[in-house]
């Protein structure tokens, strides 16, 4: 499967996650960012917000990164939410649409958090069926992001990266490889981050996420929390280099959601990602 960015996309430049407090400055400055990514859920209500995004869409390639589909829900996909996502995607014509390999809702109740699945054959069947349905309704392949995890289940019968690779094989979806999530999960669950990268099917990776995380101490032991509230740390930049070596120059994106700094800080992080992407050790895609 080939994941094609829309005309005008600049896959060799890093993008940033667009958050509302930066919107006005971005509109007035129009900095040279490769592309923008937003959570579609933030644009499913107020018409003014979607209209502002539509205007920005003329100047920047746009990616819709969903957090509300709950692809791993055993009771299926919320039809209303999927219809809203389709309407937004039809209107904004994003270069990429992505979601998470996780679940958030069950029986009409929503946690608004991304909870990992047990990596079992049953869960694989459920999420593959849901991804198939979403791709069919949207009329396009989507990227699936590996979650950041604080727990794993005894019931799992395969590693997470194998589960994700099998999801790709069954549905034709792509992968949004969040290297910070891999670092966080590897620490919290005792996994090998580089082995994780080696297991993913390189041709399916269509995007890389970069972000900061927090360190929480619980009874003297450290749990990493994926709060998107600080700069990317060096071990995650190292993992990013490994990811580029393995996957080539796929589009990267800086995520920042909590303790949002000035726009220039995000642009600075994106410039760092660009410098690494353009370094001579990275092989061509």
């Amino acid at each position, binding site marked *: 499967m080939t994941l094609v960015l829309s005309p005008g996309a600049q896959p060799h430049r890093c993008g940033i996650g667009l958050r509302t407090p930066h919107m006005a400055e971005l509109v007035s400055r129009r900095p040279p960012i490769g592309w923008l990514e937003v959570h579609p859920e933030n644009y*499913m209500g*107020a018409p003014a917000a979607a209209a502002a995004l539509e205007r920005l869409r003329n100047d920047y390639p746009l990616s819709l990164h969903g957090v509300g589909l709950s692809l791993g829900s*055993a*009771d299926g996909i*919320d039809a209303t*939410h999927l219809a809203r996502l389709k309407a937004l995607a039809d209107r904004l014509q994003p270069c990429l649409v992505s979601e998470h390999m996780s679940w958030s809702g069950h029986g009409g109740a929503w*946690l608004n958090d991304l909870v990992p699945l*047990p990596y079992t054959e049953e869960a694989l069947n459920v999420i593959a069926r849901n991804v198939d349905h979403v791709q069919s309704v949207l009329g396009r392949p989507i990227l699936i992001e590996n979650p950041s995890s604080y*727990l794993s289940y005894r019931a799992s019968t395969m590693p997470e990266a194998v589960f994700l690779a099998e999801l790709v094989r069954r549905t034709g979806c792509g992968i949004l490889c969040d290297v910070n999530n891999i670092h966080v999960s590897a620490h919290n*669950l005792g996994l090998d981050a580089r082995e994780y990268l080696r297991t993913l099917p390189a041709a399916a990776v269509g995007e890389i996420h970069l972000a900061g995380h927090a360190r929480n101490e619980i009874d003297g032991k450290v749990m990493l929390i994926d709060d998107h509230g600080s700069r990317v740390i060096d071990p995650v930049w190292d993992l990013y280099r490994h990811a580029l070596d393995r996957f080539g120059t796929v589009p990267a994106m800086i995520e920042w959601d909590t303790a949002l700094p000035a726009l220039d800080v995000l642009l600075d992080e994106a410039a760092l990602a660009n410098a690494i992407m353009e370094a001579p050790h990275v092989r061509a895609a």
Partner: protein
Amino acid sequence: MSALLELQRSFLGSIVSGETAALDDAIIGGGFTAAQRVQIYRNNTFITLTEALATTYPAVCRLVDRRFFNFAVARYIAENLPDRPCLFEYGAGFAGFLAGFAPVADYPFLPDVARLEWAVNAAWNAPERPPLSAETLAAEATRAGEGLRLGLDALYLSSGWEVDAIWLANRGEAETGASPAYQPVRLEIRRAANGISVRRLDVATWTLRDHLARGETLGHAAEATLSQAADFDLTAALRALAFERLPVAILPNQGVNPCNA
């Protein structure tokens, strides 16, 4: 029942209750207890939903102060997880919750402030619908007569307290010193060019529009209005509706005016 369905049901129950015993055998410890690992998801959920409610209800939050607000919404969240994935749709029942929440009994106006803030949120997030043309409106009024039902681009709320003044005084950071006054107000809330308009209406105008906004027929709405204001002028009221570009839809199932049948 499938193992995944059972796991997701148990997990949701643990997030709500904080009791994780049902998950102890399902989760690998690896240096932490299952409870410690599940607690991170519980914290994430409560922090996200608390922030969402603070965004939707800034005046309520300021009136009771942030620490008490966090305490109250923790109770609300545990009893009312979102039923939709979008956060702007979360919190519709918060005013009703506050009305029955004993610790805020000394703030009798608080549920109505919450109702106003929810109306503001709903108006801001409502889909954009173009107003009906004067010609369409006139034609439909002739065709359906008293059976006409209109969709209006506004929300209507009444309170025994000056909740609009309380809301205005408490939604920003500035100190205003305004104190709640017990005086009935009838409000119309709608999206305006630069935000949200909250304005007071007289009894007759508010009663007619409130009844229409509830989906009642023009005949029923006019009857209810006349019972409040004997000198009510329906023709002028309809002209005002059209002038203010409030009607945005002709609602279905309207009866046909027998005079025009």
